[in-house]
């Protein structure tokens, strides 16, 4: 691979010495400077250009992610990042040991949650280290600023990594293009804008780092690169559950290399080093523990590891045995027995329960319909839905067309590295099709492969142009250029319009790439920079209206409720309530206990008196619901309500989904099902809403989110009372009344 790329690099570098510049510069420089050492040599020029492009891309990747700070403020976005922020805060305040042993009694009341053992600490530790480092250098930053800017910072680092990766699999040109493409690719930006302080922010960096180091290790066969990739893997394991992708892709890649007869000592060294060390290191993460040897998801890697040993053994025996026939027989025997032993071990392990079966989440990746039928809690999350074509187009734009072109170039020049990137691209594209959020994993591969397409095409086109321009100048000029250019040049003579064609194609490529830039910028600023805590809308006069109801409610909880109050809400808001409201919640976004969530779902979908019993048993003091009927905010609890019914009904059969539907239709108006009109969620959402006129010319109690007049305007609450409603009614908090005095 390295050997192959050298001559191309050589030609690329031999082209640039610009003939008009070189005679000028010595005079100019010698006129001003007495020493000649400052004169830039070709290599230095190339290096300077490369470094400045990389610096610009680095800065670009960072600043394009700051739209959210400019449009809104420096704040943490969405749901999960609030948990990460809260834990990071804890880590910086209390230190690592406290963090590692943290039992959080503020969530999952009354069960609690062992935070240290149930999270991936990579992100928090990274942010804390950045924070401590900056503090040490006397930068008086707040931990929030560090958290907000962690994702953009790592995105910038990813661009550098993409450059090195591109250089490794193709050449420096492809590396530079890859860095530029990934810097602004919306698929990646969606999870790494400033404020989206989530595991994925650092995990994509770690993922690419592991892959790059592994490919480097395979290419060089060096133990040190293998070791480095093991550490990269360790970082990835510590940061994100997506490490399972690595631990399955790499064995798959090794298997493909074995099958295609590309087995080599380099591969043996790289894989064994990476797997053994990576596994041992990964076991240090409490949340992962012994899964590498005990879980079905990790067994492929182990199987391939043993297969490698068998291969090595066979290779060795081949040297010893001169008789090929004997070897063939032996080969057949060993391979069958090895596969047989492996299968039996796996079977016994699974049957005895030592090896855990695949988890539902993993299953749903292989079978997209699995979650819908079996695990409503996974299916209810919007980012777990199968991807629509439009979102591919939205997130990749021209990369979607460049990707197959890049694959073509990769297949044309197959090497260990290109096989890797092809496999990474194809598998991740499949996963991206299964789940929306996995577009993120596919993005680096798509960018790299597209970069190969762009770089190779443009290089070919410019070579064409150069060969043409040189040809009339000097007939002997061809002799200096490389064989490829020469062949193109000879082609040119037969096709006179090719120069114009090349120019047109270059302009076309330039046009497409500039379109990509504008598209990415537009998507970033319009779609991916909203914190979703603060909602912005355009007012009647074109002015910007801010709905800050979430924080209003959370801050009210924080300031005006007893410090030990327990808040019941749907699990979506759990992390935000604990982080911003600083109050105990019953369930949160770490959906580890389905029954507990189902209990809340059951309470929400029961009648008030039944719900009161459930709430009393859970010690609930406040109930929080999100309601968009006044503002027309559509992702509120009424629209999520069917999932509550489904999840509740999955555990408690008393809750039946058809009770809430009318002829299979979900309605909240007069035609709604009677159970729907009287369940707790309906009552809490629409309590006293019937008195309010939301829109001019509409009857009171007109729900703007669903566009209907509500069916039950006379709601009386017996066991709860309204405690707080935000100014736009988006969040409503109710207090659970104490039981009546018996005397």
């Amino acid at each position: 691979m390295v050997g192959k790329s050298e001559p191309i690099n050589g030609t690329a570098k031999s082209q640039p010495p610009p003939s008009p510049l070189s005679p000028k510069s010595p005079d100019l420089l010698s006129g001003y400077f007495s020493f000649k050492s400052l004169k830039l040599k070709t290599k230095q020029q190339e290096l300077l250009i490369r470094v400045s492009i990389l610096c610009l891309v680095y800065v670009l990747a960072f600043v394009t992610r700051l739209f959210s700070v400019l449009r809104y403020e420096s704040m943490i976005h969405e749901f999960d990042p609030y948990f990460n922020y809260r834990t990071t805060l804890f880590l910086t305040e209390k230190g690592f040991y406290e963090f590692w042993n943290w039992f959080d009694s503020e969530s999952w009341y009354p069960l609690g949650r062992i935070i240290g053992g149930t999270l991936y600490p990579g992100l928090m530790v990274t942010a804390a280290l950045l924070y401590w480092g900056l503090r040490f250098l006397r930068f008086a930053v707040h931990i929030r600023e560090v958290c907000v800017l962690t994702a953009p910072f790592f995105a910038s680092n990813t661009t550098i990594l993409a450059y090195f990766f591109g250089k490794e699999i193709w050449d420096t040109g492809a590396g530079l293009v890859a860095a530029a493409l990934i810097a602004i690719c919306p698929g990646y930006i969606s999870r790494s804008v400033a404020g989206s302080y989530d595991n994925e922010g650092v995990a994509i960096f770690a993922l690419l780092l592991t892959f790059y180091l592994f490919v480097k290790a395979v290419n060089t066969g060096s133990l040190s690169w293998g070791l480095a990739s093991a550490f990269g893997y360790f970082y990835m394991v510590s940061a994100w559950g997506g490490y399972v992708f690595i631990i399955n892709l790499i064995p798959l890649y090794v298997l493909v290399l074995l099958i295609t007869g590309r087995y080599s000592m380099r591969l043996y060294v790289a894989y064994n080093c990476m797997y053994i060390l990576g596994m041992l290191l990964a076991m240090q993460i409490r949340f992962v523990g012994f899964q590498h040897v005990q879980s079905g998801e990790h067994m492929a890697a182990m199987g391939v590891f043993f297969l490698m040993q068998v291969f090595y053994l066979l290779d060795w025996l081949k040297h010893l045995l001169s008789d090929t026939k004997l070897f063939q027989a032996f080969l057949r025997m060993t391979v069958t027995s090895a596969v047989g032993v492996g299968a039996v071990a796996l079977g016994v392990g699974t049957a005895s329960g030592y090896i855990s079966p695949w988890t539902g989440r993993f299953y749903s990746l292989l079978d997209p319909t699995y979650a819908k039928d079996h695990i409503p809690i996974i299916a209810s999350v919007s980012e777990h839905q199968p991807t629509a074509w439009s979102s591919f187009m939205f997130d990749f734009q021209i990369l979607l067309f460049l990707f197959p072109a890049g694959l073509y170039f990769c297949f044309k020049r197959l090497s260990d590295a290109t096989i890797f990137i092809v496999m990474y691209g194809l598998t991740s594209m499949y996963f991206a099709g299964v789940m929306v959020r996995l577009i993120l994993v596919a993005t680096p591969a798509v960018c790299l492969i597209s970069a190969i397409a762009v770089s190779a095409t443009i290089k070919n086109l410019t070579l064409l142009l150069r060969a043409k321009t040189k040809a009339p100048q000097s007939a002997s000029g061809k002799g200096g250029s490389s064989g490829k250019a020469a062949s193109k040049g000879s082609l040119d003579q037969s096709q006179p319009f090719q120069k114009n064609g090349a120019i047109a194609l270059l302009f076309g490529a330039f046009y497409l790439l500039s379109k990509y830039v504008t598209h990415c910028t537009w998507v970033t600023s319009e779609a991916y920079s909203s914190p979703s805590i603060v909602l912005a809308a355009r007012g009647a006069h074109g002015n910007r209206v801010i709905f800050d109801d979430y924080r209003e409610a959370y801050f009210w909880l924080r300031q005006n409720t007893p410090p030990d109050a327990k808040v019941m809400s749907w699990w979506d808001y759990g992390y935000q309530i604990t982080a911003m409201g600083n109050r105990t919640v019953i369930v949160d976004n770490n959906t580890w206990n389905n029954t507990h969530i189902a209990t809340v779902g059951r309470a929400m979908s029961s009648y008030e008196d039944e719900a009161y019993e459930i709430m009393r048993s859970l010690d609930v003091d406040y109930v929080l619901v999100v309601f968009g009927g006044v503002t027309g905010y559509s992702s509120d609890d009424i629209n999520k309500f069917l999932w509550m019914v489904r999840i509740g009904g999955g555990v408690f059969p008393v809750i039946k989904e058809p009770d809430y539907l009318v002829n299979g239709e979900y309605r909240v108006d007069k035609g709604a099902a009677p159970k729907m009109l009287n369940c707790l969620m309906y009552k809490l959402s629409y309590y006293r809403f019937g008195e309010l006129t939301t829109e001019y010319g509409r009857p009171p109690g007109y729900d703007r989110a669903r566009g209907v007049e509500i069916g039950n305007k006379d709601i009386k609450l017996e066991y709860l009372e309204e405690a707080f409603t935000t100014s736009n009614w988006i969040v409503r908090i109710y207090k659970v009344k104490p039981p009546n005095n018996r005397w």
Partner: protein
Amino acid sequence: MAIPLRLRAAVSISIFALLLILPSCSAQDIQVVNAERRIDLTSHIIKVFLTLKVENTGASPASEILLAFPPTQVDHLAVVKAQVATGKRKKKTYTPLDVNPKELPDAPNGTKYLSISLLNPLAAGEAVTLEVLCILTHSLEPFPVEISQSESQLVYYHDSALILSPYHIKQQITFIKTPTTKVESFTVVDPTHRAGTELKYGPYNDRPPHSYSPVIVHLENNSPFAVVEELVREVEISHWGSLQITEQYKLAHAGARHKGVFSRVEYQSRPGHSGVSSFRHLLARLPPRVHSVYYRDEIGNISSSRLRLGALKSELEIEPRYPLFGGWKATFVIGYGLPLEDFLFESPDGKRYLNFSYGCPLVETVVDKLTIKVVLPEGSKEPSAVVPFPVNQYLEKKYSYLDVVGRTVVVLEKNNVVPEHNIPFQVYYHFNPIFMLAEPLMLTSVFFLLFVTCVAYLHIDLSLRK
């Protein structure tokens, strides 16, 4: 309810009647010829204007006049200012006088005294007119203690119909101004008269020293009971031309606690009737030429604020995230920058001094505990603070951006601060301007080193390839 009130009043009267018999120690040769007291109950900060015409009936000149307060009032006394008027009607000029607490050995019933030092001792037979302003905080006691959203807030005000004084008062009268005409009840000490928003006790003639006659007024007061429980103001001086102020507030509604339901629909649709004692807006008066103002709390920016810049003052209208009902709290931070030349001056002896206003910029608020931290630039020496009223002072160290030795922080603490404390104080310190260059030099050297390493790396790189 009226009966227990009367009863309490009767008991207190009898106690004070006993006190009268006790021999009084204070100089009996001073008597108050005429006393007029006006008590303003329109907000939760109570202002008492007292006009005393004092006459020296003794033989020796008197240099101080005593004011007496019952012990319950002394704790809530935020400010006592006294001034004397000189000159006739039109050419009247007022001279402020020093007021200091004074301990008397046998004060009846724990009465506390403040002494007003006169400019010139009052000669025998002479008279002088003193004007005293007392400001009381936390003296309106909500009753009922808890109210619902639709009720308005009623409070008790306890005082005495007779002015407590160590001197014999010949004639006195007390006016109490209530915010509305709605007064539930008031103790009657004849002659008592009520008209509109004014309640008149007196005139009473010839009352002996330490006369006391407790009265309770039960009135409606819906003014915002905005109390900042704790305020930390940090003033950071940068000699590069700006003053950065960060103010951390812990605000509470100190009125009658909110009980039961908070209904948004009623709050929105009937603003005049629902939640009348609650408040939504606060006004902060900031100095002119203020810039980069922010208003946020622990969980982010609060998007409801308005800034009006003016030549004499800037006004920042802030709205907490939610309306504050009784007992509700809100914490927030206001920060702003100010041009340095407006506040930092050089004194003749070469020292620099900061001249900044004490007190809380929010109008009509009481601050229970105010801490001002003046962060001096790195390298400043010999800090000293000059504050026109007693405060608790000490020094701290703070590390900010790129600090090596840390900045000296002068901390000034005071309890029970009212808007009348918004008067300038000074912090003096020595500063050598050379220290200003430390941080830029540090940064430039870091960048210089970085570039030098790059250059060196490139050259070494070149030589290695050859």
